[in-house]
């Protein structure tokens, strides 16, 4: 695993932990995440998870899918 993939895996794990903790622990205990009309730590943490989950798996698994590469190679006859 190279450095980029390592960072990606760490970010993915962190994002899943943040979303999971906020939605399934804080959410179930309090009946909601955050407080209406306020910016709370819980709201900030779940927002961070929401944004990090976009970046993490991309860095971790982010090269072009093999199936798509093969389709393009079959259509054009050249290596991608």
């Amino acid at each position, binding site marked *: 695993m190279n450095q980029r993939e390592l960072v990606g895996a760490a970010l993915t794990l962190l994002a*899943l932990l943040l979303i999971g903790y906020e939605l399934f622990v804080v959410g179930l205990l309090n009946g*909601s995440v*955050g407080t209406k*009309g306020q910016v709370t730590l819980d709201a900030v943490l779940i*927002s961070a998870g*929401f*944004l990090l989950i976009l970046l993490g*798996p991309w860095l971790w698994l*982010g090269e072009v899918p093999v199936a798509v590469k093969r389709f*393009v190679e079959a259509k054009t006859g050249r290596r991608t």
Partner: protein
Amino acid sequence: MQAILFLLMVLAIYAIAYIFYGRELLQNRVVKADPNRPTPAVENFDGIDYVPANKYVLFGHHFASIAGAGPIVGPALALAWGWFLPLLWVLFGNIFIGAVHDYTSMMASVRQGGLSIMSISENLMGRRARYIFLLYVWAALILVLAAFLSVASATFAAEPTAATLAILFMPLSLLFGIMVYKFGVDIRLATVIALVLLLIGLVYSFSVPVHLTYEGWVVVLTLYSLIAAALPVWYLLQPRDYLNAYVLWIFVGLALLAPLFLPFMEITGPAITSFVAKGAVVGAPRGTPAAGLDIAYFWPMVPLTIACGALSGFHSVVASGTSSKQLANELDALFVGYGSMLAEGAVASLAVILPAALFWDFSAAAQKAGISLETLKAAGIDVEKTKNILAFGAVDRFYNAYALAQATAWSKLFGLDFVPLFKGFKTFAAWALTAFVLTTLDTANRLARFAWVEMMDWVRPMNRDAYRIITNRFLASLIPILIAAVMAYPTIEGIGRAYLVIWPAFAGTNQLLAALALLTATLWVYAVLKVRGPVSLLMLIPAAFLWLTVTLALGLWVLFILPNVPLLYQIGAGSLVVLSLGLDILLIYLFVRGLLRARAI
């Protein structure tokens, strides 16, 4: 008129339009689509933006991108003219302008290596037209971003369960994409897994709302738009939009089923209330003199309210931006480009206008549907205070009418309690709306990046390093979303959320863009495909009519509405509209010159 007659009439019109106007005329006679001609997705494959997609996946992306809040908010707002006039505009606009515009923009782009409709204008109208068009689109996309950033933030702040679902939806979409693309899981199995998880998430989000302030959501969604717009399309955009399309199909499917279960229910609303409505309908802020004046004439001002439901310039940018770069086969373009626009029209006519027409007058509708007024009151509609659908704001008209039609149909069919069904469907309607707003947020930013990169190509021969820096995909995404965020962030005193001011400006510039894109596509058909005679007039006449309508409407908006909005928006939205009108006049001059030149050849 009865519900079933309305439904069958609309479906028959769309079916005839798809087969005869779309397939026979546009695909077979005008464009002559060829399944063996390689598309830009394979010719220019880069793994980021040029990636061939399955036609159903691409339909999901295209449909979800073009169907933002537009087909819902616009027709709901236009009910101020009655139900018939908005329906007429949706059907006419859909078939003769919107779907033609989307399909021909997509095909023109496919035949020009995936270039945007703006860059295609260079070959037809000269280099100057290209840069004017690109600048116009870039400015219009900033208004799109500002309007949707504000709408999405306001919806999440008001409907926190919708925010929960949106948060759950992202990892789910990524999981679906990774299953299909990385691990080769069969798409049907992956779809079932993702939809089951989505259903669980939907039920779960009922009980765990995520609360954040409006301003907080503006910040979070600005960052979301920035990141999501820079990611490869296969990774987030394709799987997310594919799943989104299922949500939309369920939403539209339910809208089709309800009238089938209430076939003989009569419409209770007036076909036409008046040809002129109050200024508030076209964006005059509440409390200002213009809001109470009879200035919103159905023609030419209807495009300032009904945008994407009938036609939209934003669609041409999507069709010749992200979608044309993912089209695997030319024949898929009819389903993706033409079909998506008709499906969007179905959302406007069957999910918004029909339920509103049926349940317009609450007392009369309750009597016809066999619901007691006490039951309606328990559901939150007190007919003493709220006599008809127009008593609600635009978005609430949609939520209430959709939920009333659904709850009436299903409670009658299965003998279930009306009130919980009504509340459940009202929440579902809010979810359906927000699902598409997020998609538009990152697609619009990606398209603004494409426009920016194309607009800056003159830097490349002068200084390659400078070009590389200014077209960096994160920087090119950051500039438009930052400007949009500055407009979306403030809450305007005495008015409310920013979108209330930005929406008509966005709708107007967007419709003007549709006129310019359709004129460009018409010129492409005329000059490049050499299609002449009545067929070319079928495109030219609607394009010219639209251009005249929207130019007049925006002129009236600048004259009557703009002086009433706060200074920040006079500078922001106002200057963008005035700039757009100026560029519009320049472009129409270049179009006429291009047309005359093509005729001479």
